[in-house]
């Protein structure tokens, strides 16, 4: 290890750590280098503790880090099998630690049985073969062969062949011995490639999938991705909720509230001993969500319900409604049940029918209009396709007069609005914002806007 510059293994380790999902910034990379300079590579536990302190910043990251560290630094130890010095023929040349890539030195490396030197040679060959780029398990054999070749397998095989041809008994024995060694080397290399695949490929694919999911149309997401999706939705909702959950008066530093200062100091004849600063009150967003759960948008609304469920845990003032032919309040269901049964219950009670927007809005006006105040944001999720029923834009107009604003999220692309039975353009004038929303990204952005606006 000593002859390798300290920064090189570290640099590769950082890359591996990033691949495994640790967020390592450039600054942290520099810190890691400084820390390693201080501690050194010799004491493995100290090294592990050190890098763990610098790189892994959550409990989750710590476990991932431990895993990666063990995997990565295990690679340093060469695991040669059948390493019995008794079998070694006399007069075998001593091991050469240096850049031995030729056939002769691979032979001597194998014969010497110096695991550390062999491991170093393997590392070097792997690097030259570009092992960092391994991504799929189908590439395992390819990389294993490349590494073996770079270590000088061809030349060695030629030599062995020559020894066999010569026919001398000592040469034959040596050829047999070396062939056996090659086999165990092959196993070791295969093992090494496998570990590398784990190291380099795992994070990439994970990240790739997540990115993909965030930008796929929600209606296209397959059942098998639902679990991953659920995690993503929860993460997003949690992030948003954490940012906006707090309601608080923020003191505006340096802006004297003259009126209240005077009042506060009346007792001292108006001499301002105690100063009062201006404050700004930040209100929790009040949100009412109307979610279309009819057949046409069912896939999409599942995710919105999921999102609402997660937000519901943090934002106190959300009231949720679901509608198809008619409308019902679902806040309580979301509050009292765990997520899966809640969504199932909603969908079975009211979902999958054909939607009647006019009816739903009329229901809303009858039942809940008095709760809409000038601080309420009303979010409507739906494709605005009311199956040619009366759209009742008059009701939406009245809601928009009472509410702070209406946000309409439409899973259809803009080009489809207004075609067929779509009443989108009839509703649009009453909405503060009408936007396409059919991926998780869209959803996140829309909700973020909404929350931002509530501040």
């Amino acid at each position, binding site marked *: 290890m000593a002859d390798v510059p300290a920064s090189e293994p570290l640099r590769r380790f950082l890359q591996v750590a990033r691949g495994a999902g640790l967020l390592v910034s450039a600054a942290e990379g520099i810190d890691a280098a400084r820390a390693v300079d201080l*501690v050194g590579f010799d004491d493995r536990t100290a090294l592990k503790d050190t890098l763990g*302190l610098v790189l892994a910043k959550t*409990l989750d990251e710590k476990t991932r880090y431990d895993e990666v560290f063990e995997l990565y630094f295990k690679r340093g130890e060469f695991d040669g099998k059948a390493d019995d010095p008794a079998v070694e023929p006399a007069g075998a040349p001593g091991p050469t630690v240096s850049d031995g890539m030729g056939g002769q030195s691979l032979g001597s490396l194998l014969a010497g049985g110096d695991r550390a030197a062999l491991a170093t040679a393997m590392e070097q060959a792997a690097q030259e073969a570009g092992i960092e780029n391994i991504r799929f398990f189908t590439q395992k054999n390819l990389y294993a062969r490349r590494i073996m070749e770079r270590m000088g397998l061809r030349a060695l095989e030629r030599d062995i062949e020559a020894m066999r041809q010569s026919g001398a008994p000592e040469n034959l024995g040596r050829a047999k011995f070396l062939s056996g060694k090659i086999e165990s080397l092959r196993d070791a290399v295969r093992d090494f490639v496998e570990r590398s695949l784990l190291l380099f490929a795992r994070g990439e694919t994970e990240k790739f999938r997540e990115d993909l999911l965030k930008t796929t149309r929600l209606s296209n997401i397959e059942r098998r991705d639902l679990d991953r999706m659920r995690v993503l939705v929860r993460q997003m909702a949690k992030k948003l909720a954490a*940012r906006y959950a707090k309601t608080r008066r923020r003191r505006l530093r340096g802006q004297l509230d003259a009126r209240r200062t005077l009042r506060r100091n009346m007792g001292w004849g108006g001499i301002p001993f105690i100063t009062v600063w201006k404050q700004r009150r930040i209100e929790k967003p009040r949100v009412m969500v109307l979610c279309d759960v009819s057949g046409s948008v069912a896939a999409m609304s599942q995710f919105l319900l999921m999102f609402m469920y997660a937000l519901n845990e943090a934002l106190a003032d959300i009231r949720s409604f679901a509608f198809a032919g008619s409308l019902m309040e679902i806040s309580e269901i979301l509050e009292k049940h765990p997520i899966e049964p809640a969504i199932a219950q909603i969908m079975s009670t009211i979902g999958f029918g054909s939607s009647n927007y006019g009816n739903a809005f009329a229901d809303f006006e009858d039942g809940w209009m008095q709760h809409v105040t000038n601080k309420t944001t009303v979010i409507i999720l739906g494709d605005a396709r009311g199956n040619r029923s009366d759209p009742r834009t008059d009701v939406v107009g009245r809601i928009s007069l009472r509410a702070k604003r209406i946000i309409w999220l439409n899973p259809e692309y803009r080009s489809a609005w207004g075609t067929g039975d779509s009443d989108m353009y009839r509703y649009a004038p009453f909405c503060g914002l009408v936007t396409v929303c059919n991926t998780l990204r869209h959803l996140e952005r829309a909700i973020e806007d909404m929350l931002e606006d509530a501040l």
Partner: protein
Amino acid sequence: MDDAARAGASPLASIDAVERGLGGAGYIANRQISTAVYLSHHLQKPILVEGPAGVGKTELAKSVAAWLKLPLIRMQCYEGLDESKALYEWKYGKQLLYTQILKDKINSVIGEADTLAAALDKLHAFGDVFFSHQFLEPRPLLRSLQEPGGAVLLIDEIDKSDQEFEAFLLEILSDYQVTIPEIGTVAAMVPPIVLLTSNSTRDLGDALKRRCLHLHIGFPDEKLEAKIIASRVPGIDARLLRQLVSFVQQLRGLDLKKVPSVSETIDWAKVMLLLHTSVLDVDLVRETLNVLLKFEADIEAAGKQLAGITQKARQVV
């Protein structure tokens, strides 16, 4: 500065030295903790300590201070904490008093200036007395920078503060300096050792985490916990000590709302010492269980399995 260098260099020379030093101050540290303290000093980076309540996060800061004989400056965070309470405040009262004095002396300052402009010029030449160091009331953060021999700054329960405050801390954490608009930038004479603690009630910002070493202290294993108790409750019988540590360790395995942490074990050991017990028995455990468990539901849940756990603990010799 020399003193600080001497105090800083020798006791912090190696990770082992840190471990020994903390042990001397009564803090039994595991390898990771001592590595963190060692790195923090040499890289001049704050340590962010996370972990469940009562595992000795705050205690670590106190012990570091006691060991290095540095003053401990503690800042407890809470919702609504802002820079006027954390960094500095102007002494408004004193400033007001000065205006009164100034009112009497104003003529002597202005002198025989005839015009308003001339009078104002003279006043300006007088300097900005109101916003100078004399009127500055240093709060914990500023104080920790002004300590001539260095200090240990403990920012306790950072997760309780607001996000804005967290952002405000960044300058002091990365550069050990703060900017006071009216005066300028105040840099630390000797960079303090900074420890932040968090109970993870909310996720801290990435920017903050990036600037810190991240140390997670979990519950100690049986051996370490026994060592900690032995150091904190010196008079306790060795056999009883092992038994009660085993008991608590088992208790942590149960499904409880709030599992007992090290500080509760210490309290419990003290109670045992006070009651002159030498062996755990079920009745005594039942009576003193409220020292370990802080929720009625937990006490009830554990109550059913008390006999079994006690029995198992007593087998530890």
